[in-house]
């Protein structure tokens, strides 16, 4: 009887198996993203990076280009002394890293990994869950990511940690809005909230990836993803020059490692999300085996590989940006969000609604032309409005002229 029930629940069993596999691969991916981060950091600075840690000299003196490094790092974190300072809010202090890590992992549940697969006579979704509100789920869970940061900063009972948490909150609130607008453009164009359907809408006859249809929305999402994951140039919550270590100053050992890993887990989730929305998920045009009709098991594996490869490319981009750009100051961060990205997002929404009104939300040639027009308008406006480096705006009162001793330079 149980056997029959299990056969009826093929999708459930498959989803459970997939969840295990995805979490495993994900944790491995997180560990190796850290290695990639260190490698690319080194290469950008003309160094060689970690290339020593091998696997216990099992293979003589060959050390696998340092691929054993994540294992060594993990072992180090486990063996370090785990300090809980006296004056912290103990339950919340422990809850902080747990929250951020769990939240970073559960976002993966709705990512479509490889279309559909035929096993026996059942056609199964290669997706842990396929809820109607898949997109809203990702958004909701993604926003919870800040919760762990705020908990950690608040529970630490340390003003610099607290500043880190507060900054994270303000930053997330500001960047959720342009992110939501960018996603809304896709939702308006495809009329779908299911992530699998959004992927499928990019590969029909005459269809193109959403990045071709809505390049500006894609750009908007990329920028806000950097802010949502607190990566450079938006890593205000852990600005070490100003805030000691930021929200994780008081953490040590594995609790710190959880914060550290959660950052990368967030980046991977964000990358997967971006790939699904704008880069066709597991799809590559004209490549056999990567089309919606291919449901063989090997096609599924191929699709998962393609998806993983796309995510890896985006991770490299994340890291590359980190080792290029300096951090924005907090007022510059806010200015970029509220004066740059939000108006751009609103313009894109208005345009997408217009396309919907004339009944051609997916006509990519026209959306492309519209995007170019919007971009030109934005650039024209910014070119006409002069702005100052220090962020002191022209509509603010002028400072008194500096004529005598510095004591008089106090502001208006």
């Amino acid at each position, binding site marked *: 009887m149980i056997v029959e029930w299990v056969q009826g629940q093929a999708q459930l069993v498959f989803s459970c198996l997939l969840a295990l596999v995805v979490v495993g691969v994900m944790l491995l991916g997180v560990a190796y993203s850290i290695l990639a981060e260190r490698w690319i950091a080194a290469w*950008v600075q003309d160094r060689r990076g970690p290339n020593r840690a091998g696997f216990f000299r099992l293979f003589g003196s060959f050390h696998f280009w340092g691929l054993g490094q994540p294992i060594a790092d993990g072992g180090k974190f486990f063996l370090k002394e785990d300090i809980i300072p006296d004056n912290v809010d103990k339950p919340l202090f422990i809850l902080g890293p747990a929250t951020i890590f769990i939240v970073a992992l559960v976002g993966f549940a709705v990512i479509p990994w490889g279309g559909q697969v035929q096993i026996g006579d059942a056609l199964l979704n290669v997706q842990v869950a396929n809820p109607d509100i898949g997109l809203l789920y990702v958004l909701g869970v993604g926003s919870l990511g800040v919760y762990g940061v705020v908990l950690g900063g608040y529970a630490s009972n340390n003003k610099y940690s607290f500043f880190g948490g507060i900054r994270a909150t303000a930053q997330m609130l500001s960047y959720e809005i342009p992110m939501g607008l960018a996603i809304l453009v896709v939702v308006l164009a495809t009329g779908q909230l299911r992530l699998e359907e959004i992927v499928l809408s990019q590969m029909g006859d005459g269809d193109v990836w959403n990045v071709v249809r809505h390049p500006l929305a894609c750009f908007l999402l990329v920028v806000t993803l950097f802010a949502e994951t607190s990566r450079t140039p938006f890593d205000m919550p852990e600005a070490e020059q100003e805030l000691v270590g930021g929200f994780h100053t008081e953490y040590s050992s594995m609790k710190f490692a959880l914060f550290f890993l959660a950052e990368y887990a967030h980046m991977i989730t964000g990358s997967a999300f971006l790939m699904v929305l704008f880069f066709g998920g597991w799809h590559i045009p004209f490549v056999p085996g990567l089309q919606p009709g291919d449901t063989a098991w090997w096609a599924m594996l191929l699709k998962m590989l393609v998806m993983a490869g796309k995510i890896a490319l985006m991770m490299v981009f994340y890291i*590359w940006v980190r080792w290029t750009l300096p951090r924005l100051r907090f007022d510059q961060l806010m200015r970029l969000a509220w004066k740059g990205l939000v108006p751009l997002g609103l313009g894109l929404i208005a345009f997408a609604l217009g396309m919907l009104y004339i009944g051609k939300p997916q006509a990519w040639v026209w959306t492309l032309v519209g995007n170019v027009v919007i971009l030109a308008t934005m650039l024209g406006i910014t*070119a006409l409005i002069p702005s100052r*480096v220090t962020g002191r705006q022209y509509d603010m009162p002028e400072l008194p002229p500096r*004529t*005598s001793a510095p004591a008089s330079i106090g502001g208006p």
Partner: protein
Amino acid sequence: MIKDEDIVVVEEPQLSAAERWYIPQIADGMLVTLRHLFKKKLTVHYPEQKRDLVVGNYRGVHRLNRDDQGRVACVACFMCATACPVNCIHIEADEAPWPDREKYPAKFEIDELRCIFCGMCEEACPVDAIELTPVHDLISLSREQMIFDKEKLLEMYDQTKNLKPRKNPQITGYPATGDRREGKPADNEETAA
């Protein structure tokens, strides 16, 4: 008190259009880092590869030079021990077993942990017996091993004489005081004549 004429008013720089659009400047920076990604690396795989030290006067571990007969060149004059600012050189002199000099070091020890590698000993030495080598990877398991005695310093010369040949020609046949050499007039009498 800061005088008015000392104050320089610096105008805020204005951003160009490209700088206000962010993206062209960001793309520029990304290209710079991209070029560095594939550039030749400046660092080397250290224990396997070693960088050639181009400086001939690198101040590393000391050595005691040998003369052409393989004897220690030092004449135990204590000039280096006197010049040493951290007193890391310990010499015990004895009468030389060879006829061409009066003294030789029975004991010659350098505490490499105390040494600051200033090279003053090399400067002070009148016979160019003590020199600093380019050897810089100085490791040991204990403090005692870091005190280099005469044998170890001479061995250091054997190891590095090809890497850094002894700079100046050796000075032998020092004018000796007294009648140490049988059947030969003293050198100072020759120079006097």
